Every structure is written in C-alpha cells, then in structure tokens.
C-alpha cells in the first residue's frame, strides 16, 4: 500500500487544474459554436461585396434577384438567379414528391410490417444507401439514370442532351434523400406510444388500419423533420447533381427532359476563376442557397402546424 502524501498545496493545485481544464473545454465548445456565426459572416460578407459601390464590375442587386439569364460569357456578363432558384425548388420538390411516400411506407414496413428476420436486412439497406458518398451517386446517375431518361424521352418523342435533364436530377435527388427521410421516419414511428396502437386495435381496427391511421399520424412530427432534412440535402447536394444537370443558361426549366441549372451546380461551374466577379458571385449564390433552405424550413413548419396538433415531440 502506498500512502498518499498530503501536501498543503495539493487541494489548491487540483482546483487550479480544474479551472484550467474547464476553460479549455469551454473554449472547445465555443469554437464549435462560433463556426456557424463565422460562416454566415464570412460568406455573406463576401457575397454582398459584388453589389457594393466601388466594386469593379459591380452587379445590380435587383437584376441579380429577378433576372432569368446566367451568362458569364457575355460582355458585360449577366448574372441573375431567379430562374435558378425556381429550378432548385422545383427539382427538390419533385424529388421530395417522388421520395417522401416511398420513404414513409418503407419506414412503416421496417418497423411494423416486416418479419423480424428481414427487419435487420432492410435497415442495413437503408443505412448503406445513406452511407454511399454523393460522388458515387453522381457516377451512377451519369452512367445509368441518364440512359434511362433518354430512353424515356424517346418514348415520348422528345430528345435530351445525352440524358442530362431535370428528370435525371429529380430521380437522382429522390434516391439521395430517400435514406435521410426513411431513417428519421423509422425513429419516429418506433417511438410512437404502444398504448395508442393497442387502443386502436382494441377498438376493432385492423393492423394495417392502425398502422396507417394511428401510427403514421402520431409519428407525423418526426416524419416532417425527416422531410425537412431531406429537402435540405436536396437543396445542398452539389457534385452529383452537377454531373447530370446540364447547366442551362436561361430558364426556368419546367420541361422534364430539358437541361436545368440549380444553385449548387452554378456554384461548381467555372471553377477555374480565382478572382473577380465570376469568383465572388459564388458567395452571393451561397447566401441565396442558405436563405432558400431557411425559408423552406419555415414553410414546412407552417404546413405542419396547419395540418394539425403535434402528438409526440
């Protein structure tokens, strides 16, 4: 046995070390929290620069926000994003419309319908889909979804630019947001109070009636959270979408087989520039992208409220 020597300064030293350690831990927390503020400050600061007086090749904010052309190749170049915003929202919504019902049904299946042995298998499938990096989705989309789309276009008597089209973007995004919505729905469906389910069954509802009418409505809030995250991913997805979008120079695009241009594909195009308007304008698009995501979140929250009461939050 070793006896601990009790120095008079020992307790004080322990306290001082505690204080220092505490300060270091706090600092780490502050650094992590400060990042979001810094992102806004730096990206927005650089983004509004191009509209400021005194900037060489200054852009007009009104034209930027309301125009329907993106022509950096013209002299003077024209940069306007309204049609790009519309394209971004339509493709993301299209993907959500395609993906949302499938995701919710899959989540319901995994939690409530699937035989026990298959449950793990299907959960793993969803997890793997979530883990696949977006560039790999991009390669897959550029190689196979585009082929599918150009065949489909042929059936409707339309032509595409090698399959790069709005429809390809929508299908790609639908696949990419599927695991996001599904995994959040799984969590929320699994956490529905068992008593609600039992009550419904006791009142004479069948199992599937209970699943669809009681469980899904009770899990609504979590499912909508999934939808918000999914839409966020759809808005922010960059590399994969760029491989199949085709970057049209004007718009908006409403024809499914026509090429399109979204906020993120615009940010990734013309990467060779390192200074000047062409470079700085990307930050402006970044600001627009963040605003679009924020506004969509708010809109969905409003929709959720108008749909009805929140049961499990």
């Amino acid at each position, binding site marked *: 046995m070793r006896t601990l020597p009790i120095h008079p300064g020992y307790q004080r030293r*322990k306290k001082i070390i*505690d204080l220092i*350690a*505490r300060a270091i*831990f*706090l600092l*780490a*927390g502050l650094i*992590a*929290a400060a990042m979001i503020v810094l*992102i806004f400050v*730096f*990206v927005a*600061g650089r983004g509004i620069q191009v509209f400021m007086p005194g900037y060489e090749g200054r852009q007009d904010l009104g034209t930027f926000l309301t125009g329907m052309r993106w022509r950096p190749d013209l002299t003077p170049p024209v940069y306007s994003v309204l049609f790009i915003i519309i394209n971004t929202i339509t493709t993301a919504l299209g993907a959500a419309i395609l993906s949302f*019902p*499938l995701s919710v*049904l*899959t989540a*319901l*299946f995994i939690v409530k*319908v*699937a035989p026990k042995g298959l449950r793990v298998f*299907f959960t793993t*499938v969803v*997890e*793997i*889909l979530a*883990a*696949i*990096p*977006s*560039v*790999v989705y*991009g*390669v*897959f989309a*550029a*190689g*196979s979804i585009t082929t599918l789309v150009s065949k489909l276009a042929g059936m409707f008597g339309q032509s595409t630019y090698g399959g790069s089209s709005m429809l390809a973007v929508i299908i790609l995004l639908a*696949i990419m947001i*599927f695991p996001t919505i*599904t995994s959040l729905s799984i969590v929320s469906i699994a956490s529905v109070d068992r008593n609600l389910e039992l009550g419904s069954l006791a009142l004479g509802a*069948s*199992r*599937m*009636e209970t699943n669809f009418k009681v469980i899904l409505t009770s899990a609504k809030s979590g499912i909508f959270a999934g939808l918000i*995250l999914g839409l966020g*991913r759809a808005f*922010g997805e*960059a*590399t994969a979408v*760029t*491989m199949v979008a085709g970057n049209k120079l004007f718009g908006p695009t409403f024809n499914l087989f026509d090429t399109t241009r979204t906020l993120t594909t615009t940010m*990734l195009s013309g*990467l060779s520039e390192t200074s000047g308007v062409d470079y700085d304008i*990307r930050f402006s698009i*970044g600001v627009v*992208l*963040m605003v679009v*995501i924020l506004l969509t979140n708010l809109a969905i929250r409003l929709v959720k409220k108008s749909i009805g009461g929140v049961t499990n939050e």
Partner: protein
Amino acid sequence: MNKRRKFADDVRTVVTWLSTSISVIVLAAIFVFVFSRGWNTLSWDVLMSDYHPENMLVEFSDGTPGHFERPADLDDADVFSEKYGFALRDEIDHRKQHLMVLTYIADDSPLRDAVFAGSGPRKGDKITVMEDMQIRRFDYMSEARGRKSPAGFMGNQKTADETIERIETDGSALIGMFYQSTGGGMRGSLVATLMLIGLTLVIALPIGIAAAVYLHELAPKNKFTSVIRSFIEMLSGVPSIVFGLMGMTMLFSVTALFGITTQSILLGALTLSVILFPVIIRQTEEALIVVPDGLRMASLSLGSSHTQMIFKVILPNALPGILTATLLSISRIIGESAALIYTMGVAINDHPEIGRSGTSLAVQIWTVMTGEQPNFELASAISIVILIMVLVLNLTVKGISSRLNRKWRT
C-alpha cells in the same frame, strides 16, 4: 372483418412491401453498375500507379541483338521479339486511342539496361524499364539506311506486329526508345486521402471531444449552454458546398499563416474539421450519456477532482463511442467532395504534400467525370474503392454500437 376491409388491408400491406423493395432494387442497381463498370479496371497497378502519364526517352547501353525464347506463359495477343527479348501488345484506352503496351521483358534483354536520354538533370541516370509502359517509338540502327531510324507510332508502324518486324528485319541494334507510363492510377489521391484523414482527425477530434465533454459534463443548464448547443446543431444543416465557401475565405487566412498561398490539403482538413464538429460532438455525447452516473459519483466521492474524473473515469468508459465517432468521421472524409473541390482543388496531384493542392479519391472521381471525356471506368474503379472503405467502416460502427449497448444493459 368484412371482405372490403380485408382487401384494403392487403392492398396496404402490398404497397409497403413494394416501396421497400424499390430501395433494395436501387441499392442493387448502384452496386451492379459500379462493379460492372469498374471491376476490370481495378487492379493493384491502378491503385499504386500515378494518374499522369510520364514521358521517358531512354537509351540502351548495349542494344545488340541476341536470341531469346518466347516464354510459354505469354498470351497469344502478345507479339514477341526473339532478337531483343520483349513482348508488345496492341490495346485501346478509354479515349479509344490505340496503344502499344510493353507486356514482357526478358531478364537479360537490352531493355533492362537503360539510361535516361532526355534533357535535364536526370540525363544519364539509370532507368528501370517496367512492364505496362506505352511504347511510342523505338530508335534502332537501320541497315538499309545506315543511320538511326524510328519505329512504332512515331515511325510508320501502327501495330505491335509491324513494329517488331521492322526492328528485327531492318535493324542491326536497338538504340533507345520513347515511352509513356500508363497513368490513370489513383496512388496520389489515395495518399492525399490518407493525409487528409490524419490531419482532419488530429484537428477535429480533440476539439470535438472537448466540446462534447463540456456540454455534457461541465456546462451549467442555462440559456447560454442551450444557445451553444443549437448553434452546433445548426452546423449540421449547412450544405457542404457552403463549408467550401467558408474554407476559401475564412480558413484560407488561417493556412496563410503557415505560408500556404494556394488551395491545400491542410485547408481541406481544416474545412472538414468544421464539417465534422457536429458529428463528433453528437456521437461523443451519446457515449457520455450511457456512462452510468454511479461511476461519476464513485469517482468524486473517492476524492478525485473533476478533471481527474473526466480523464480517468469518463473518457476511458466512453472510448467505444469515441471510436464510433472516429470511424464515422473517416467515412465522411472519404466521401466528401463539394467542400474539398473548393479547398483542395481539382487538379490530380501524383505527389501530394500537406501545403500543396491535391485531390482526395472522391474529388478524383469528380475530376475524371467532368473532364472533356468522362472516364467511367476509372471513376467506377475509384467508386469501388470508396464503397468498400465506407461499407467496412459503417459495418464496424454497427458492430461496436451493438456491443456497447449490450455492455451497459447487463
């Protein structure tokens, strides 16, 4: 239950089965596509070779012909030179260009003994000629013309057959050759990815874990803490391309302190660290939550300070969770592309350095896909590598967390 309700029930069941099977089909389609396109390209050579082909002009010390036996295991498509002891094959690359590839060199062939003949400081250096090089031209001593003459693509010969026939019938000695290493490899990106993983973890893990410890163990429950929490939460909703923008402006000035003036692997690592903060913090916190309170109380009641408790009791017990956070972070680093395109650049660098630009594997896919001729074969081959790494990491995480759950339950 009447018939109509039973029918409606069955329809609902079938619908859920169908929608779930779609996800399985999609996953299978992705794997089939990537593997069928990339499997043939993927080889040890592709993993370990440079992307950019290198041009080499060499001269042979002793180019006099000898007599060589055609090895028995040589493929029928290979054309063998009995005088000089090497074999050539005609191949087509992904740009549909015709190539002549060196497939075999005999041990005492003149090709084994070559020196660099191009200009520059390497002139006169010994060069080991390897298989798999693309031959552009042979220089040989022509008997008919009595001087040095070219054979091969830069002479008048278009195929391996014609080339070898030319140097065997007309030549009295081989003087040298001009060749290109095959290129199209991913070694540079592989090394850059490993550097990126190492650097990012070194930066992100300490800060992330410390922040999680603060939030879960030390922070008072007040408004300030919840603001910090929600700020970190918001970070996970920011698209990665916006992180790229932030890297270009804010973190660029940080790397400038180290004297780095371009996009660099360090800048990529800093940007990724910020992306990973919410991931690491959330995972670590979840690990801290499952550490039983009894351990904390026991430690404190034995007279340890908070610091001692954190470092000697809590963190060791949260280790599996921290490991999970690390593995998830690595998988995220491997897959990240948009933020890195901005911060590390898109030019593939065969000799990556921390302070210079380079591409990770994911960005190399982006580069070869957005070039003038998308190279699906190489992109799919890299995708296979990425998929395997990501799958292994994620399945390991699954294994760890199920073991962790069992540990505290019993």
